[in-house]
């Protein structure tokens, strides 16, 4: 304790933060930038969620109710782009900014000015993208996958789409470089790689994935741009180009992107389950190797997204089997989380509830992924609502619940105050029940043959669409509780100690709550690191 107080006192000398708007616009502090990332992600979550609720409103009944098909397609396209690049990815970067320096014993990120730059690109990128709703021809409507030749028919918003994707990519790459460089160079002496918390490990691997695949997306959309404006025919069949090649390149980015969205959630769940089981994580090293294996495999499975374009049997077999192989390291992780809880002294605070929901519901998404990996079955499921149900199970109770679990876990550390646990538990149950009401019926709709990306459908699909829409409305509205709980916590939460959760381990819990402006200006001692790395 004396050591903590001495450390806190040492930090007070460095607490010279700028005030007013300068603190945010010129921010170089990892916590300030992390906060801005999280606020931005939350804003985008509600804009993208608003688009989703409009989609569910249109699908509440068969026939065209509110929107013309072009606008409906714009809504689905923009919902995906905003949620993936505007909500989930910035939320992970925000959490990385807040937690990585604190967890590795560093005073800040390695490249603070680059950190500022990579954040401030994002508001411009998304202002550009969202303002495309107001240009002639409307917002992009060709799907987030931007397949040519369809996307090349986009109106005036096409260059806005391409430029904003470039900006998002640049932001992600710069953010990822910062994370890798911080973890590799800024760890406190004694913080060896195999002492690092799982959240840091998963982010390190995620950052490598980002550096490898975001430039591939940027290259693909650059070629779309030149096809559209400069007369090249990379993907235009009439000029000798190959539209299917775009799909290969896109999914070479797209499949690792799925893991970019989910791997940090693995890390957070690996922090939360031991805390609320009051036991060390079962199989720490196997968790690290499992995450690395999943990341490696993500590079060799991309064509399972495009089995129906026609490819040689050997290729179909390769991509089917390599996809199924991902179940092995994923199974290792699910086993380890379950084994961590085995005979543990469990308690069910909101972070643990979200982590458990992640465990159950992400596994459902994984199972439907295995079904989609089988080539003959995929021929039936392709482009149906079954696919929509699958990836939403992976991304909503997977990535989004992972983010919420992380925020509820670390919010007392960030603010120095405990949030309203009852209200957060209500938020959890509303989310967990209605996310299933929203997405589970979509499995039935898909198996019955309802195609995706349509504003109208045959009447036999009505009942499950009504259920799904009601689930969507309640799920969407219940998310308003999330910012309310956070704001209430900041304003009127009860103060907490350094270790807000009884069973928490890790360097961040050795710092005061809230932590000083600069985290570890004096590196933590080996004893403190060893105490934190109790896995």
């Amino acid at each position, binding site marked *: 304790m004396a050591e903590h107080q001495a450390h806190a006192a040492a930090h007070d000398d460095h607490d010279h933060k700028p005030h007013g708007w300068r603190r945010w616009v010129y921010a170089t502090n990892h916590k300030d930038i992390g906060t801005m990332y999280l606020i931005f992600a939350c804003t985008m979550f509600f804009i993208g969620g608003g688009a989703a609720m409009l989609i569910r409103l249109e699908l509440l009944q068969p026939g065209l109710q509110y929107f013309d098909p072009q606008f409906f397609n714009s809504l689905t396209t923009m919902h995906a782009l905003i949620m993936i690049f505007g909500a989930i990815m910035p939320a992970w970067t925000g959490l990385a900014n807040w937690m990585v320096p604190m967890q590795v014993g560093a005073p800040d990120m390695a490249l603070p000015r680059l950190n500022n730059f990579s954040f401030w690109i994002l508001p411009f990128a998304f202002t550009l993208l969202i303002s495309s709703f107001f240009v002639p021809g409307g917002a992009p409507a060709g799907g987030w996958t931007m397949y040519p030749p369809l996307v090349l028919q986009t109106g005036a918003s096409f260059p806005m789409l391409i430029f904003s994707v470039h900006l998002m990519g640049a932001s992600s790459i710069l953010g990822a470089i910062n994370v890798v*460089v911080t973890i590799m160079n800024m760890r406190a002496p004694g913080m060896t790689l195999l002492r690092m918390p799982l959240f840091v490990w998963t982010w390190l691997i995620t950052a490598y994935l980002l550096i490898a695949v975001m430039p591939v997306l940027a290259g693909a959309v650059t070629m779309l741009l030149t096809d559209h404006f400069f007369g090249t025919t990379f993907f235009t069949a009439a000029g000798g180009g190959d539209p299917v090649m775009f799909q290969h390149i896109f999914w070479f980015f797209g499949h690792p992107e799925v893991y970019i969205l989910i791997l940090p959630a693995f890390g957070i769940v690996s922090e939360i389950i031991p805390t609320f089981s009051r036991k060390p994580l079962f199989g720490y090293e196997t968790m690290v190797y499992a995450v690395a294996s999943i990341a490696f495999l993500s590079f060799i499975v991309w064509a399972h997204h495009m089995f129906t374009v026609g490819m040689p049997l050997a290729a179909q077999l390769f991509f089917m089997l390599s996809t199924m192989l991902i179940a092995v390291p994923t199974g290792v992780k699910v086993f380890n989380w379950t084994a961590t809880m085995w005979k543990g002294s469990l308690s069910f605070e909101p972070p643990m509830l979200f982590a458990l929901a992640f465990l159950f519901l992400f596994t459902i998404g994984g199972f439907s992924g295995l079904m989609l990996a089988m080539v003959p079955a995929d021929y039936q499921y392709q482009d149906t609502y079954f696919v929509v149900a699958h990836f939403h199970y992976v991304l909503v109770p997977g990535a989004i619940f992972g983010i919420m679990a992380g925020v509820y876990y670390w919010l007392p550390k960030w603010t120095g105050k405990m949030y309203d646990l009852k209200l957060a538990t209500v938020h959890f149950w509303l989310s967990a029940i209605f996310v299933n009401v929203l997405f589970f019926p979509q499995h039935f709709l898909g198996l019955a043959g309802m195609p995706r990306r349509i504003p109208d459908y045959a009447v036999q699909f009505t009942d499950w669409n009504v259920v799904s829409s009601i689930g969507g409305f309640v799920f969407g509205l219940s998310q308003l509780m999330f910012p309310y709980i956070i704001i209430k916590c900041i304003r009127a939460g009860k103060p907490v100690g350094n270790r807000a959760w009884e069973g928490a381990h890790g360097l961040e819990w050795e710092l005061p709550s809230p932590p000083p402006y600069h985290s570890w200006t004096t590196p933590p001692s080996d004893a403190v690191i060893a105490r934190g790395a109790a896995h």
Partner: protein
Amino acid sequence: MQAPGNTPALAPRTAVAAAAVDEGERRRRVRRSAILFAAIAAVFYFGFIAMMLLRAAK
């Protein structure tokens, strides 16, 4: 730490100076690794475009 020519290095004997040396070295490592990863990203970006150009030239 020994300076060239068997002359004892005076500055690094103090903890502050040693920390400064370490900090300088760390800054260099940070810069080098950031440039390396940026170069890798650039190789992926231009590499895929180059591959498409080579494919078209066949």
